[in-house]
């Protein structure tokens, strides 16, 4: 009894944070097995974290939770707008700015324990901690060298350059899938920074053009979270997928 009423309180709490409501049954399940239960705010945080790590197609959300309109992926439709905020999860991410082969070469260099900054070949630390930013060695010639004292050019911080364009595969709670294209750069979107299974709320008013959801900071709220198994599978299979796409020998 107590758990059910707590679940309802948690549901309200989540709702007031702008999140769609999970079913009471799911919330009860997600509550910790402790008696007495922790205070409400802590419970809400716990359940929210569970929600962010859950597969939302798996009877998590209330049947009234918003989902994509039925024809969302229809390429015949020139433009339409979302009428409600929709919670989605990330299934796939692709950096359209980089060729697949470029990504293959980067992955292989890292696998060999090497990376380059500019022309210099760097040995990666063997303890697995990757503090090394992906150095986009600028094509410095002697002319430029005075202008970049560190000898390292390009993308500071995140490792994803400013003008990158990513395409995501997004899925709503009903299992509908749609491409999400970065219309304007969203800093959190990047390979390695956006997780597989991560949750995003796409806001009402977001544009869908030719079956592609256009993402921009004003209509795209990244909620965090990930689904560990999916994330692992995605990364483990990434090199093979990239190579298959360009028709390279995947054994090598």
């Amino acid at each position, binding site marked *: 009894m107590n758990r059910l009423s707590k679940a309802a309180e948690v549901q309200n709490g989540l709702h007031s944070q702008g999140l769609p409501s999970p079913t009471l049954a799911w919330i009860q399940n997600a509550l910790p097995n402790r008696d007495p239960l922790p205070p409400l705010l802590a419970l809400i945080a716990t359940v929210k974290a569970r929600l962010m790590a859950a597969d939302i197609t798996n009877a998590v959300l209330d049947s009234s939770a918003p989902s994509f309109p039925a024809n969302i992926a229809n390429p015949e439709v020139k433009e339409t707008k979302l009428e409600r905020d929709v919670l989605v999860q990330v299934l796939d991410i692709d950096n359209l*700015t980089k060729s697949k082969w470029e990504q293959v*070469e980067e992955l292989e260099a890292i696998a060999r324990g090497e990376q*380059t900054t*500019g*022309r210099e*070949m760097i040995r990666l630390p063997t303890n697995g901690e990757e503090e090394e930013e992906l150095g986009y060695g600028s094509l410095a*010639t002697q*002319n430029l060298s*005075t202008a970049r004292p560190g000898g390292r050019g390009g993308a500071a911080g995140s490792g994803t350059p400013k003008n990158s364009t990513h395409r995501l595969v997004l899925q709503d709670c009903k299992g509908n899938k749609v491409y999400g294209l970065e*219309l304007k750069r969203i800093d959190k979107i990047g390979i390695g920074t956006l997780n597989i299974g991560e949750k995003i709320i796409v806001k009402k008013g977001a544009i869908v053009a030719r079956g592609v959801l256009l993402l921009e900071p004003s209509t795209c709220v990244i909620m965090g979270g990930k689904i560990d198994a999916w994330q692992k599978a995605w990364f483990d299979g990434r090199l093979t997928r990239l190579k298959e796409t360009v028709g390279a020998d995947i054994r090598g």
Partner: protein
Amino acid sequence: MRVLCVAEKPSIAKAVAQHLSGGRSQTHNSRNKYIKNYVFDYDFGQEWGNCTVTMTSVLGHITELVFPSEYKDWRHPPPERLFDAPVNTVISEDKTDIANNIEQQARYAQALCIWTDCDREGEHIGHEICEAAKKGNNRLQIKRAKFSNIERAHILNAARNLIMLDDKQVNAVSARIELDLRIGFAFTRFLSNNLKPLGGPLANLVLSYGSCQFPTLGFVVDRYFRVKNFRPEPFWSIKVMHRRDGIDVNFTWSRHRLFDRASVIVLYERCLLAKMAHVTKVQEKPTKKWRPLPLTTVEMQKMATRFLRMSGQQAMEAAEKLYNKGFISYPRTETDRFDIGMNLRDLVQKQAVDNRWGQFAQGLVDGGFQQPRQGRHDDKAHPPIHPIINATSSVLDNDYERRVYEFVVRRFLACCSEDAKGMATDIDILYGEELFHAHGVIVLERNYLDVYVYEKWTGTAILPKFSMGERFEPFEAHITEGKTVAPSYLTEADLISLMDANGIGTDATMAEHIQKIQDREYVATVPRTRRQGVEEEEFDEQSPAQGGRGGRGNRGASRGRVGAVVSRARGGGGVMEFIPTRLGVALIEGFDRMNFETSLGKPFLRKEMELKMKAVCEGRTSRQVVLNESIDQYRQVYFQSQEKLNVLKAACREYIFQNNGG
């Protein structure tokens, strides 16, 4: 008092004797036909006062390090014993008469003054001279002259300000010599003993190993595989063109290009839907193309391979001769900044008589002179390479010397002139949600470019007037399609850059290593061929080749898209590309596949060693510590290689005998 002076080579001895004696010296022959002894009087000032001087020279190193004769056989004792076998320093067979000359002359002298080149090798040669002289007379006072060119005032100044030999540098070189000997011999014998029996082409080849050679070869093989494995991929972009005042203005997409057609179509359609483009930025501002930095050895070699139709090795040899004749300063330097105290105007003035660039030089003297830019490197030994006196092309011996001399002078004059100036116009438009950009440049003053013919800066068309906030309907917008292309094979300039960035060899020895891997038939060079049907050449922003490719105009391109048009024109012009032979591939693949932490084909081990040499020079570690550490490392690699020998053999069978079954 009698002073014995010894230079590193005859030409320096002659020039120094000439300056110190004021042209009044007696010349005596020695037993060696190249070596003369010049006798004259000179006043060294407070140090030694008035002296009778004998000035002579050596021919580079006079001693070498060798293993005792019981290590002559390549198999017994086994090569790994060479890591800790005894070694002896002996006078090289062909240098005994030179050493004897020094020993004899030392007997009559009270002091010895070393005039070897002021770099690490020179310091060690100085040490070798001391040892030879001490055999004749071990009570000698020993000093060293510090100089970096053989211009008269500079030499006289050096003679009055003698310093001591630097033992730290001597020790660093002696460590390097010993490591090269042990490691080189051990692995060369290892390779030969184990691979020659495979027969075929391997039976008759010299299979040498060198700790610089292999990483150098590694770079070539690495690039070869990147080219070979490359997969082209299509990409799409949006181009917007607007015609105004009869000028076609091309706007490029801020996303540059995307590797997905459908996405580009979606974005393109939204541009068309918006119909009107909106000008969000109009900027007109002065721009410059920077004059080059003062010249270092590495830069000279790179430029020579790109623009002077010669290899780095040939350029170094020519520069060395020019230095020996007193036309240019010491050509082995890492310094790219001139000391503020140097009288550069004087050096510029000396070029004013030339009929090729004299007028330009005179212009600098008459007020155009600018203090050169300051680079960040200073080896504290030599200034950047610069001309000392003017040399007409008739006094130079061959075309290589002429070209290198001309380059050194033009580079120097360019350093001392003003940046080229222009006006750049930038226009940004928002078309739908997409950003596009147009850029135009007009060159206003060429300045240094007038003398520095190796660089170009081409202006683009003048952009017509656009106003901030203006809306217009673009004349044309369309989707373009292109394909990525493989990176190019390495050029010598690329290779030098890679070696430089990865600490393989010193600026003075890089060219030799590059030559060595060709002599050993590990790599071959072929003229670069122009590629056809390439819409766009931008494989990968990280590509090491980028800096080296295209040559002309590339520098402008990387600074502000200014030279973009020119940078497309790649290749041609006699640039050679490096391609590994099957043997080269087999060796590197073999070592890479053995899979230990640091393959011999990678630069890491050697770089560590090079850094240790530097530490010895700076007094942070000692020769013995470095020897022990490095020998241990390589010995370990040796044993691992022995254990996994079959991997190396398999690579040889696969690549050399094309036999995948093995």
